């Protein structure tokens, strides 16, 4: 039996008990440890735990910069009965979600330009309701349209560590398909879901007067 340190036990207990995934800062706070001095040590412990669990039925995963225990993916069949049948997204909603994920931050007009059709309010509402999509801010263009992006919930749900792990991202990027203009310019933007607003984004409230 592998030995375990006191700190590792505590981390294990916290991550097991938590109802949501926990980031390093929260873990440090729960352990009443002042930030940066212990950061490295805790990270090390988390990796020890991760290695310990990697062959087991439960894994310690790091998603969206947060840690959580999850059942091993290869055992998904076994857990059939726990499956939450998600309300199936309509094709329009799925397409819109993909556009938001890959092109974020993006506005409704941009989504419509890519889909070649007007987006019904319902489609965006459904996505906001899944909480995978969030309004980010407002684009600094006439009309100050709201910009949309994905949330941490999106990363957690699809099991990505960061938005750059989106499948096929580099291929799409290489083909210039993530650029909103003709692939003449080579500056293809990468999607990013940073909390911080982009240069051309304003805070949401700004226009609410």
């Amino acid at each position, binding site marked *: 039996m592998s030995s375990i340190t006191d700190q590792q036990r505590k981390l294990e207990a*916290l991550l*097991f*008990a*938590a*109802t949501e995934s926990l980031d390093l800062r929260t873990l440090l706070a*729960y352990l009443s440890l002042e930030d940066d001095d212990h950061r490295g040590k805790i990270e090390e412990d988390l990796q020890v735990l991760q290695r310990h669990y990697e062959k087991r039925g439960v*894994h310690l*995963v790091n998603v969206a910069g947060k840690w*959580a*225990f*999850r*059942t*091993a*993916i290869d055992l*998904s069949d076994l*857990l059939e009965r*726990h*499956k*939450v049948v*998600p309300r199936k*997204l309509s*094709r*329009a909603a*799925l*397409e819109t*979600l*993909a*556009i938001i*994920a*890959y092109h974020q931050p993006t506005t409704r007009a941009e989504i419509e330009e*890519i*889909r*070649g*059709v007007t987006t019904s309010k319902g489609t965006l509402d459904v996505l906001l309701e899944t909480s995978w999509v969030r309004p980010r801010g407002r684009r600094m263009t006439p009309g100050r349209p709201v910009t949309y992006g994905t949330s941490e919930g999106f990363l*957690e*749900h*699809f*099991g990505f560590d960061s938005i750059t792990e*989106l*499948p*096929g991202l580099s291929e*799409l990027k290489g*083909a*210039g*398909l993530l650029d909103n203009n*003709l*692939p003449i310019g080579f500056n293809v933007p990468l999607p990013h879901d940073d909390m911080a607003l982009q240069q051309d984004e304003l805070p949401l409230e700004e226009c609410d007067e």
Partner: protein
Amino acid sequence: MDLMADKDKYQNDDDWEGQEQCLPKNASDSSFIVDIEGFEGPLDLMLALARTHKIDLTNISILFLAEQYLTFVDKARVLRLDIAADYLVMAAWLTYLKSRLLLPDDRDGEEELSGDELAARLAFRLKRLEAMRGAGQVLLEGKQLHNDFFPRGQPEGITVLRKSLYEADIYDLLTAYAAGRLRKVVSVVHPGHERRKVWSIKQARKQLEKIIGFDCDWAPIDSLLAGFLADPVESRTALAAAFGASLEMAHEGVIELRQDSPFNPLYLRRKGENE
């Protein structure tokens, strides 16, 4: 031109049969129904057509695609009049594109895009939509929480117990006390238990008339009122009321007043017949 070659190629295997769910089942069938509502906009329709006719979007086979689109919309228009405007706008644009692609480009130096550039732009839009559609599908097929991996079923949860730590300093305390007390003092009028004695002018006149003798000698007002001035509370009101009454009486010509200079004693006397 490559385009024409493509066109020929595709015309050869022109089969509409059983290709796409929303496309007409059989072009020659009289019960042919064009279900344009099954499509999400012109781009979607074009992608479906491209799939049906195996048009490779990476090649410039846009001209052929445009023709397919126009044919489709025309057929739809014959059968149904309520085709959404954006399909018609796209049709008009594709007709324009067709003419630009077929006619030799003699617009050198103009700012307008050439037919090939317009076609490339359309091809790009189609590819981009197709890519996003594929991306959505990949997301859907990927591993998802609660479907492929699961969180703990019975998490105990970490409870946060909030404890309030109240803050106040001595200055707050004193300010609150002083403000509270003063507010109360100001806001509440205490009616005195003893009613203050106040002389009315009428009352004072009555007294004066009693006191002022008929001897018509000048007498200082203080001495006349001496009997009432002993009480400090009563003295003020008595003096004030008496003064008022004396002015009234002087005005009526009942008495005369005399004061040698300011702040000197005020003398009164009855106006006698001896004047």
